[in-house]
């Protein structure tokens, strides 16, 4: 059996008296699209935050390429090639689209202006951002220098997805990337997800949209009450089975877990 590219064992995270992660296991295989589904508050976002360094779990281990890692900040995970679109999008509203795309990984000018004076290469960043957004064909953004607060919710989501897709080299994590998107825009993001997978990069997709999950996912991780209930193959189960597992209306057969 191949080793998972990203995996976790026994993750525990508590918020006061709420146990958001309760000895949770996780596995992402190379090249796959893994959907994570579960009720509101099941702990999906907390799980991916523990994988991306945004939350430090109290117990448990995370492995990347079979090697133990302990990320203490999102930049740690990012440096390791894990790129995340958070549910809250993590954008600075008063800064421009280009600024946001390059936050924490800015390009500096060549020569002494960049090396000594650390001047940013705005043109390079703007061109790159414009290119990525038009590749995505996602939105009719008027000006790459416009502030993010002037974008609609869906446009913001598009920018966040473009940012992750542009920089992710090992794993891309998407926490409800289509929640605010229109039908057409959602479709673009789904295509983008497939493009990324075709580039060989595995994806973790959190979504409440069952048709999308069943269309894209190679495997579906069902999350319930802070832990992995089971992993199913979407070709062996129907959407209503998945929803039944997720809500506790039905128990999965033991071998599925």
């Amino acid at each position: 059996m191949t080793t998972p590219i990203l995996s976790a064992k026994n993750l525990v995270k508590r918020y006061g008296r709420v146990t958001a992660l309760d000895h949770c296991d996780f596995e992402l295989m190379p090249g796959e699209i893994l959907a994570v589904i579960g009720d509101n508050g099941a702990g999906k976002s907390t799980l991916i935050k523990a994988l991306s360094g945004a939350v430090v779990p109290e117990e448990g281990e995370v492995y990347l390429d079979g090697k133990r890692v302990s990320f203490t900040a999102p930049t740690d995970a990012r440096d390791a090639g894990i790129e995340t679109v958070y549910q809250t999008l993590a954008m600075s509203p008063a800064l421009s689209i280009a600024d946001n795309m390059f936050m924490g990984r800015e390009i500096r000018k060549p020569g002494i202006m960049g090396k000594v004076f650390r001047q940013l290469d705005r043109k390079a960043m703007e061109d790159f951002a414009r290119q990525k957004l038009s590749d995505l064909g996602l939105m009719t953004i008027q000006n790459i220098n416009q502030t993010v607060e002037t974008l609609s919710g869906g446009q913001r989501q598009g920018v966040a997805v473009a940012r992750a897709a542009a920089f992710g080299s090992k794993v891309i994590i998407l926490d409800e990337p289509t929640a605010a998107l229109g039908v057409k825009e959602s479709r673009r993001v789904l295509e983008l997800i497939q493009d990324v997978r075709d580039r060989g990069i595995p994806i973790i997709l959190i979504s409440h949209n069952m048709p999308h999950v069943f269309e894209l996912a190679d495997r579906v991780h069902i999350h319930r009450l802070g832990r992995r209930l089971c992993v199913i193959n979407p070709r062996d189960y129907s959407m209503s089975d998945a929803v039944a597992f997720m809500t506790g209306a039905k128990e999965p057969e033991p071998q599925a877990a």
Partner: protein
Amino acid sequence: MSKSDSYEDIVKTRREENFAEFQDEDHGFMHRVQHTLHVTPALVPLIVLVISIIVFGALLGSRFFSPFALTLILQQVQIVGIVAAAQSLIILTAGIDLSVGAITVISSVVMGQMTFRYGIPPAISIVIGLAFGTLCGALNGLLISRMKLPPFIVTLGTWQIILASNYLYSRNETIRAQDIETTAPLLQFMGTKFQIGGAVFTFGVVFMIVLMLLMAWILRHTAWGRHVYAVGDDPEAAQLSGVNVKATIMSVYMIAGLICAFAGWALIGRLGSVSPTSAYEANIESITAVVIGGISLFGGRGSILGALFGALIVGVFTLGLRLLGADAQWTYFFIGVLIIAAVAVDQWIRKVSA
């Protein structure tokens, strides 16, 4: 995939879409004004500054509208202007620093005492004073970024602590201007005057202007500058998108401390002497300059040049009203009006629609 209906099929075929660039539509005059102000936040205080110079110039003629009087304003605002640069950085991160005045005066006292009590060469005393100011800033930064205490409370505390230390350490003694002039003129360097035509400048004034331009450039053109804005805007989002929030806040308070120490040096130049009771007004005046300058107290918005214009507006009103023979209370009256107007304009500008 089961028989989900096929409403999405229509969009499954990919169509190239126009990526419309720079197509700012015409939304009418007010909207354009609002947009322009939103993009260039220092414009409002600049306009107010120019108008107030014109009005006082018209009322007072060449008594006010002369190179001498206008550069006198620069000299009068230099300390507040330098401190306002420090205050701007901090307010951009959604913080506030009530200890800026105290850091300014204690740094000047340290510079003076190093030279006169311990006989250290003035150049080294100045470096020690600058380092001490940075250290005070670091103390604020540490308490705010690591211990997560609110900036208002932390600096309310350090203000008292630093100011009390200042009196205790200096034994409340002033170092006289003549003594400094004869043994350590370097301490008064920032007060050195030079003339261009009728205009009189000091190195302190030049320092203030260069500092403001430099900080404006750094905030706009370096990653650190962008991070300062991001941290003030939404610290959680900044952290998730790869900004080291703690380090950014720490560096901002340290740089603010250093700038205040420079203000302390300029203070010696301005007064001639080292006085532990000076610069007490720098706190409230620097915050006033920042607010009139259009920097949002909620962080993440505004331009540091606005704070320079804010400081100059206060200077113009102070001198203009004095030359008009008005009661000094009218200055405070108008400054109060300006503060409220500035905040109202800030609110209006932020109601941008795409």
